[in-house]
């Protein structure tokens, strides 16, 4: 009923091949874009910008880059963190060597360097695949982080070995560095992420995306139907590393403000890989869902643990209740009892926690951290059990069922 596709006739091939053949998808996306471009920037606090909005967008972009390589072209990579580092260091060198350069241009150009490095480390993929390729990219990870530490020219011979983002100006407004306002940084991140998402959606739908998918599904068959494997794999490495490099430049310039080499070490690669896997390999939207779960959820849980549950404003209480009701409804549509139980359980747990707070219960911040890690870990396992193909697939199933709801077969 909500997602009724009846009556939406396609009378031309162009209409049938549109980005969103179903009208509700386009409406939903417009609502999300209005939230992203108008409502969030107007209402968000400094804390929300710095710990939720900006990092979620940046991590989603990095995961999207990895997803092109691993999800669409089937080449496993464990070097994402290092490729992000290449983008960040390239951007740092560019803005310090050429201070007149426009920061957004510098950020977009820095991806070119990581694309070059990515292609160089992607050459072994022509001979090896699967786990063996993962080991080769792991070598890139170790080598590049070592290089960031040892090559002092990269960090302008700074004594602490860290790169520090200078104040960068664009049309008289500070866009990066300590003087920049969070909302400016957010808009730049949002602009770059929107641009690259649009690019990635169209690339993966087009000719190139089809050759990547063919390479992923069966490389011998792909070769037999005339796909040049070398071209397919290396373009995947180039596009993927480009996106990841831009994400790395944003990560340091628009969010962290300073970085030392071990920021780009293997935990970052794993984090991005988890986002891509949980979000769903071979999808674009999944990266956002994964980033919300892995990056956003711990912050939200921390905030919830630190507030008096029964003292929040009516608006936030209604929002929370609406979110829980919506999640329960969506899981209900998908006939997923475990999901419904989890959503209701979360609401009940919040109420119990609030009641305990009224009784004078208080937990130490270290304990909150331990519990937080446990909850996030449990949720990752939970989502992978109810839908092994990731959050994107979960949403697709819900959407399929929504189309015929409330009259299931």
């Amino acid at each position: 009923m909500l997602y009724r596709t009846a009556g939406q006739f396609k009378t031309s091939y162009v209409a049938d091949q549109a980005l969103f053949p179903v009208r509700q998808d386009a409406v939903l996306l417009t609502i999300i874009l209005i939230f992203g471009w108008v409502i969030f920037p107007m209402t968000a606090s400094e804390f929300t910008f710095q710990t939720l909005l900006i990092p979620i967008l940046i991590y989603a972009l990095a995961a999207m880059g990895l997803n092109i390589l691993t999800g669409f072209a089937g080449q496993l990579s464990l070097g994402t963190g290092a490729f992000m580092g290449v983008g960040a260091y390239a951007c740092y060198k560019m803005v310090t060597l050429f201070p007149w350069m426009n920061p957004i241009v510098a950020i977009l150009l820095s991806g070119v360097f990581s694309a070059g490095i990515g292609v160089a480390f992607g050459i072994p993929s022509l001979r090896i695949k699967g786990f063996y390729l993962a080991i080769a990219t792991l070598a890139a990870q170790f080598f590049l982080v070592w290089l960031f530490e040892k090559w002092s020219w990269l960090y302008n011979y700074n004594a602490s070995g860290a790169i520090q983002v200078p104040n960068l100006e664009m049309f008289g407004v500070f866009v990066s560095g300590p003087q920049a306002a969070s909302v400016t940084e957010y808009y730049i991140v949002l602009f770059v992420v929107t641009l690259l998402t649009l690019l990635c959606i169209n690339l993966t739908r087009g000719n190139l995306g089809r050759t990547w998918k063919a390479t992923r599904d069966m490389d011998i068959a792909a070769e037999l139907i005339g796909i040049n494997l070398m071209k397919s794999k290396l373009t995947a490495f180039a596009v993927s590393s480009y996106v990841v490099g831009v994400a790395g430049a944003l990560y340091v310039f628009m969010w962290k403000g300073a970085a030392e080499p071990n920021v780009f070490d293997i935990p970052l690669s794993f984090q991005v890989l988890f986002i891509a896997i949980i979000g769903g390999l071979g999808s674009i939207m999944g990266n956002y869902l994964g980033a919300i779960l892995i990056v956003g959820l711990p912050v939200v849980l921390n905030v919830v643990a630190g507030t008096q549950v029964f003292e929040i404003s009516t608006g936030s209480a209604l929002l929370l209740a609406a979110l829980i009701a919506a999640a329960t409804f969506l899981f209900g549509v998908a006939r997923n009892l475990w999901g419904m139980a989890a959503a209701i359980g979360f609401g009940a747990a919040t109420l119990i926690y609030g009641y305990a707070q009224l009784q004078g219960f208080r937990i130490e911040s270290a304990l909150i951290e331990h519990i937080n890690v446990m909850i996030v870990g449990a949720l990752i396992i939970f989502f992978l059990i109810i839908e092994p193909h990731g959050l994107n697939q979960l949403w697709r199933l819900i959407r399929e069922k929504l189309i015929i709801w409330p009259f299931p077969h």
Partner: protein
Amino acid sequence: MKHFTKLATAAALGSVLGTAAIAQELYTPNLAYRTGPFAATGIPLMNGQADYMTLLNERDGGIGGVTVDFEECETGYSTEKGVECYERTKADAVVTQPWSTGITLQVLPKTNTDEIPILAPGYGFSPMAYGKVFQWAFNPPSSYWDGASMMMQAISGGDMASLSGTKIVLLHLDHPYGKEPIPLLEKMAEMHGFDLVLIPVGLSQMQNQSSQWLQIRRERPDFVLMWGWGAMNAGAITEAVKTRYPMDQFVGIWWAGHDADLQQVGEDGAGYRSISWSMPQPDAPIMADLEEYVFSRGLSQAEDTDWVFYQRGLVISMILAEGMRTAQQMHDTAEITPAQLRDGLENLEITEERLAELGMSGMVPPFSTSCADHTGHSGGWMLEWDGEKFVQASDLLMPDRDLIRPLEIAAAEEYAEANAPWPVNEACDPES
């Protein structure tokens, strides 16, 4: 528990009346780490800090009649979490205590625009000492460069010329913290003709340093200086014992002098030294007060209260409390703002008399700060492990300020230039 109920009622009442009840408190969040690979060294320090503030609240009703809310925000030593904690607490906080050189480097430029003092006692960026440029940053009572200078004096026996031709290894954590002393040590190596060998320990190699110690055995250095933290200290000390490196040639910075790390090796570690700007005084009057008002009331999580790190935690909170007290006196108000606290921290006068009044004689050398000097350069003592505990092994050592000061100013100005526009304290005359 009772304190909390009171607090909750106050908050509830405050929200009903539409006034901020929080303002009746001095909110001094601590970005603590009681989890992760650095927890072992973090916990005793954070316990000491929290207990000192609890003592003030219980015994004196806070500072100047206003209670201190010493909330902890857990970072696990992760820079990302640290920035998250900073953003979450900065709205109400009068000070930020970042507790890691990595977090300090990230937060340092932000505090300059948010105008919140950053208190990093004995850590952070050494050039923060130059208060004209780093107007919001404080690292009393001693900086890492001071520490390096005092360590070199101790191993040379006071005569730097005697180091000519020797070989000195710096075993350091490969992290901004571990790299802090390198510029000064390189300069000293050039001046006094010793050979400096840098051996970094990566964050992933902290527990297994066999390759580093193999290199040390091959190099046969006359001295090993250590800039270690967390699990790295225990790893280095056990490795040194295993490879039978002479302990009297092995000297650590103040964060590498943790009792628990040396207790693992016991007698074998005897002779290991660590420079320190704090000294455990288990018989000090303040310990009796803590027993009466804090420990016996079950308000503390602390276990080993005569450890170097626990007592250093007390000193760190004392510095903050004295800063707040000075600010209250200067501005004649009990509820100080971050800007007023900055004035307080800039005019600290920790004299022998004041320490005696606080019941903390001998726990820290006397020092004072000014607008140009945000460190105070108290000097420090060598502590030596005698097989069971750390004992004092030297008189008060003073850093070579004539050498360090120009370096600090140069590094601070370079930082300000790289981060232009960087507002400096124009009213401050460094010569005065």
